[in-house]
């Protein structure tokens, strides 16, 4: 019986349809029930397959530490957060959010300060009383990343409901939180510094937009992007339209631009290093001409992918999420170059696909 690694290599030989890019990227992805993968993008190989004890069926929302040595993930029915050492696979940080009398979920929203010292988690708590549940106000819990395996928050402050993503600003003074609107909070005090429109955006004639993203991808540009759906006037009548939202976490620049009457569903997007193109995936791979505000290309995919990313040099598109394929596509032609099957065909579900530049 050949080893999984061997079989994988053989499968890759069959699947590698083009020459790999030379970016030297590492790709991180998670999979059911407790797997974390580190992938060599150029070689199309799994460098490490780590098991996260107690992941309990979920490894989601991967957030690398700024030094690229660890990755944080939401696990265990969204009730725990772990930090895993990328060189050894050891769990070096763990915060179990729930207690016997309070069930706490983190809806995939967490972020780490630029110095790597603090991790902020979004907590949605429910008090479990003997004969009833009590919904409590969501909150941010700040942990020290050196707190070990029984981490307790060092600061806690109230938050809005229905957040789904946190994005640290490079200053380390504040972070963005995406929910009904785009909020900005002070890291130290938890003070709400500002609110800008998502549901209350200001696009003339547009209906209330719909944005939900669990993939906190800002690499390689420092700009977070996401598809947004709304009805926009087209020849005088409201037409479902897809826009690209982009948020530069450094400058704070927030932009929405329609690029097509909705013709395909897109789950996640990523911005190319030159910021001229964005790529989106679901059942198709979409290329968006950002300055031109238009659809630049679309090809069908073999099946649905949830999470997209791009090579640091911009030459390849990486995709994962849902099922066990990690796809490599040519960024210029949108041609399939390779499919890497994760060992044992582990299902990546909602895990975000993250890229660490040159190792």
């Amino acid at each position, binding site marked *: 019986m050949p080893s999984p690694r061997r079989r994988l290599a053989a499968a890759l030989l069959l699947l590698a349809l083009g020459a790999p890019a030379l970016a030297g990227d590492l790709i991180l992805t998670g999979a059911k029930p407790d797997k974390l993968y580190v992938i060599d993008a150029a070689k199309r190989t799994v460098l490490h397959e780590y098991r996260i004890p*107690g992941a*309990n069926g979920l490894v989601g929302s991967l957030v690398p530490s700024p030094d690229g040595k660890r990755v944080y993930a939401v696990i265990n029915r969204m*009730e725990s957060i772990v930090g895993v050492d990328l060189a050894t696979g050891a769990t070096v940080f763990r915060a*179990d959010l*729930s*207690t*016997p*009398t309070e*069930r706490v*979920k983190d*809806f995939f929203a967490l972020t780490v300060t630029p110095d790597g010292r603090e991790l902020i988690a979004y907590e*949605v708590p*429910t008090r*479990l009383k*003997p*004969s*009833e*549940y*009590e*919904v409590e106000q969501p909150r941010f819990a700040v942990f020290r990343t050196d707190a070990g395996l029984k981490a307790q928050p060092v600061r806690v402050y109230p938050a809005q*409901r*229905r957040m*789904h993503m946190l994005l640290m600003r490079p200053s380390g003074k504040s972070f963005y939180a995406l929910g*009904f609107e785009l909020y900005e909070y002070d890291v130290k005090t938890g003070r709400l510094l500002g609110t800008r429109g998502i549901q209350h955006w200001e696009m003339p004639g547009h209906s*209330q937009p*719909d944005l*939900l993203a669990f993939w906190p991808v800002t690499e390689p540009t420092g700009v977070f992007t996401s598809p947004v759906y709304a009805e926009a006037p087209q020849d005088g009548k409201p037409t479902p339209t897809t826009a690209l939202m982009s948020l530069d976490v450094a400058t704070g620049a927030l932009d929405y631009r329609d690029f097509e009457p909705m013709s395909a569903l897109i789950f996640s997007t990523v911005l190319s290093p030159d910021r001229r193109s964005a790529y989106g995936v679901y*059942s198709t791979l979409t290329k968006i001409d950002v300055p031109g505000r238009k659809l630049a290309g679309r090809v*069908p995919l073999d*099946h649905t992918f949830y999470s997209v990313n791009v090579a640091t040099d911009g030459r390849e598109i990486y995709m994962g999420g849902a099922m066990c394929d990690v796809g490599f596509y040519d960024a210029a032609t949108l041609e399939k170059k390779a499919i890497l099957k994760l060992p044992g065909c582990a299902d990546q579900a909602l895990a975000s696909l993250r890229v660490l530049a040159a190792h």
Partner: protein
Amino acid sequence: MPIRSVPLLLALLVLAPAAPAAAATESGAALVRTWCSGCHRERAPGQFERISDIRKTPEGWVMTLFRMRQVHHLALPDEVHDALVRHLADTQGLAPAEAAPGRFALERRPNVQDLDLGPELGVMCGRCHSLARVALQRRDADEWLKHMHFHMGQFPSLEYQASGRDRPWWEIASTKLPAELAALYPLATPAWRDWQARAKPELAGRWVVVGHVPGGRDFYGTAEIRRDAAGEYRAQYALTEVGGGALAGESHAIVYTGFEWRGRGTLGGHATREIYAASEDGRRLTGRWFDPEHSEEGGDFTALRADAPAEVLAVLPQALKVGTGAHVVVVGTGLAGAAAPSFGDGARAVVARREANVLEADVTVAADAAPGNRVVSAGAASGRLVVYRQIDALEVRPAYGIARVGGGRIAPVTAQFEAIGATRLPGGELVSLGPVAAEWRAEPFDEEAKRTADVDFAGRLEANGRYRPAGAGPNPKREFSGNNVGNLAIVARARDAGDALEGRGHLVVTVQRWNTPPIY
């Protein structure tokens, strides 16, 4: 390491000493005290937190106890479970009038329109389950609020889902809705007070029965209902299928809340479940029976006490064409008598059988008989028959149906369509003829369904209007290896009408449902 909840620990503490055999003989309140009060404090004698503040149907109580077992790890023996459902449904149930609007859900009627509680409740509550599930409960505002806390706490992804994230779901559910729901469905009502005070009807005796199975089968006959040693009901059915043979059946039923008949039995050798309601005067039982594995397959049931005042339950068939003849069966009470029965102007009857509960006659309608309604009279009872010249309109029912692909341990869900004919009287009035014989075909509902060849993949339509969906799972022959879902028009052409007369319904063939709660 999963976190053990306090409720679980409490359950272990509370439940360990109880002896199940003894429990079944305890009174209802004592059962609640033994099995529930570890978590649901007895705040006053016989008053238990949460439990005493809600009224529900027997199915509602079953769903709650399912959750107490499944989610809160209550180790409840089956016989205690059954005794508790009885106790709770009897003492905290819904009055007949309160349960009436949501009965279709208890009866598991397929393809019926849900209740309309306005646009806000429709989206806030109707996107996950029927609004009947809501309408079949009674609580005051603070108890509705507690239930909203349960929803948000148990299904925290609710506010992230489509139609949950477009609005501040929790804020609406926790501020505005509890009072609104309590105004619609309050705990204390005159209807419940009156029903509790009433003597409950005794259902033992002889009954006249009619049944209709969509797709063209009608039954009539009798039921003998008696009480067994345990005080529960046993029914024996002796039925005849119109145009067919005899059909025997039996069932064992518990009557909850004084009128909610829940039976398990067989009919013609097939297992059945019966969800019937006794009328407040105890003279009538109505509802639906169905196949326990396929709740979409079943029939409408009506029974009338054989000694009830004279009444026609059914005239089968209910419409006759001019210039034709048919064997007509009239079912009801008080049909015997000295005077000859009448089928109205232009109809000649030769009586073949006449008893108090059945009249069979060969009826011929003159070619020049005037189309219109006829009064059928037999003994002291009278019913209705329609004489028609032609079918002028055809309606497919349901107008919108859902079938589900099957596979693995989940059986496919079929959809039964009926063609309902109508004739136009000289005055212009349209009169229904009931279900009429039709030829059936499936067509793509729209251009997209045509492009993806849904008609070829989704299943097949049988001669009697029943749609049998295909197997589930990715189909390599379909685009993106799609499932065998489909969007179809179901077209009926009346056999007895010109080619031009068609009726159309809409069928969506969709994916499986993974759970089958007693109230959708």
